[in-house]
């Protein structure tokens, strides 16, 4: 169906991106057909808070409605929390899985809407890629999370002590979720390089990509792991 949005983008470009989604090896197993029952929307936490519908994403792909697909690729896919509650679909579709593919296509093609949606996440990418963990105890500060209550201050004042009270030694960390061994980091680097995850980051933040690539290449060279 014709769309009023994104008229400046040629239909051929929309079709190219749609074909890229459809060509993904996972696509056939994620999409059968949709009879519009709405169970995915009923199960979807994001749908309760945003104007977001995993049903419409699935329907649009099933209908091969390229115009609407392009709207959703820009305006909707980043509202999904990727919890996969929608996988209870009676037709065995995976709306969340289809969104995974669409997000990857949005990233790999450097869509502007993707860059805007992910702008706040470059710090998190940096932290995961340099430390191997995402959320760390020292992020627990009373000014950052006032809704967590007054005990946050007590805990954060003596964070190091609280952490050392935990039995596993690997949790005696404050700037990391847990102690990540060098060998594990090298394996993560190898995985991110081999799966193309590192390459994807160049579309989100090129500077970050270059820094990470250098760090990874140096570390991998020292580790003796071969990734080519």
């Amino acid at each position, binding site marked *: *169906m*014709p769309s009023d949005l994104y008229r400046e983008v040629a239909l051929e470009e929309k079709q190219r991106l749609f074909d890229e989604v459809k060509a993904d090896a996972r696509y056939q197993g994620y999409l*059968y*057909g*949709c*009879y*519009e029952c709405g169970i995915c929307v009923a199960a979807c936490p994001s749908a309760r808070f945003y104007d977001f519908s995993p*049903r*419409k994403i699935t*329907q649009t792909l*099933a*209908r*091969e*409605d390229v115009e*609407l697909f392009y709207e959703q690729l820009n305006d909707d896919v980043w509202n999904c929390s990727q919890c996969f509650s929608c996988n209870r679909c009676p*037709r065995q579709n995976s709306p969340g899985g289809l969104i995974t593919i669409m997000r990857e296509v949005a990233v790999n093609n450097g869509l502007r809407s993707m860059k805007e949606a992910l702008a706040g996440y470059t710090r998190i990418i940096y932290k995961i890629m340099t430390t191997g963990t995402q959320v760390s105890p020292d992020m627990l500060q009373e000014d950052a999370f006032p809704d967590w209550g007054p005990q946050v201050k007590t805990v954060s004042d003596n964070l190091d002590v609280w952490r050392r009270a935990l039995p596993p030694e690997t949790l005696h960390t404050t700037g990391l979720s847990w102690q990540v061994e060098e060998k594990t980091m090298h394996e993560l680097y190898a995985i991110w390089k081999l799966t193309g995850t590192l390459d994807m980051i160049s579309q989100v933040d090129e500077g970050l990509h270059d820094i990470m690539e250098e760090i990874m290449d140096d570390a991998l060279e020292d580790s003796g792991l071969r990734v080519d």
Partner: protein
Amino acid sequence: MANTDTVLIVGAGPGGMEAARTVAELGKKVLLVEAQAEIGGTPYASYATLTPDLQETEAAMGHIVRGIRHNPSIDLRVNTRVVKSEGDIGAFHVTLENPDATQTVVEVGAVVIATGFQHFDPGRETQMYGYYEYDDVITLVDAEAMFKQGKIIRPSTGQAPDSVAFIQCVGSRDRQIGNKYCSKVCCGIASKQSIEIKRMLPNAKVFIFYIDMRMYGFWEDQIYWKAQEEYKVNYVRGIVTEVIRRGGKLLIKGEDTTMGRPVEVLMDLVILSVGMEPSKGTVQMSKIFSVPREEHGFLQTVGGPLDTVSTPVPGIFVAGAAAGPKDIEDTVSMGGAAAAKAVGALNRLALEV
């Protein structure tokens, strides 16, 4: 009562043929009367393939038709109409008429009416689909005629269509038209035809605009899911309100209700999924045999869902779409049931004598 071992069957479609075969197998004589020159009924005459299995109609039904013609227990009279009936169960005196107006009176013990349906005439509608205005607006039946020639084309140009829209429920489920019922088979037939069109024209876009998809039983995955998943047929919930000529194409206007937005798209070919109405023969048989019609206009049965073939008139039974919209499998099942009850009625009469 010499002829109480004969059952008159009116109409030689799938229901009438099955009733005839069953009566013959149960050891009674059959007088099978058909108004047309050919037997086999509407599916055999008008449908290239059958729903839901897409079998070619000739391959599926040809041997049944030939079997009826060669069955020594079946007295087949084609080009023959029932014009009058007198008497009661065990001794109906029925007047038959040939095209040259020659009349004969036969005596039969019981009657099975299997006079079927006719397709809704989309010229008689409140929706504005322009069936008689636009060459490229056709019905399911017109599409089947093309399928019989192994093609689907735009009548206006003779070219293959790039886009095809089915509009469901034409003549059905519409209080303004006067048909409140669902015609039961059109969702299946449209889905079947959409598969056939995509097989012939893999690059064509095919849409089905519907109110509810009624794909009961195995039809769900055999044709509905198949059309969606294997052939990428587009099912859009929302009924088209109007078809307008725009350039050389047809603009269809409706609402895409599940996407929550209006739809205006150009199509090369529009196929109207016309429903069922009682055939003229069914209406006539109602009068001739004094079988009342139920509120939708079809022949009335007694017993609701637990007796689908007995009419309020003793000795008169009904099979198939004369009693309301039916698919072929229900029609054939009713043909067998009506035959068994008709033979049972004759057997009881014989015991009373």
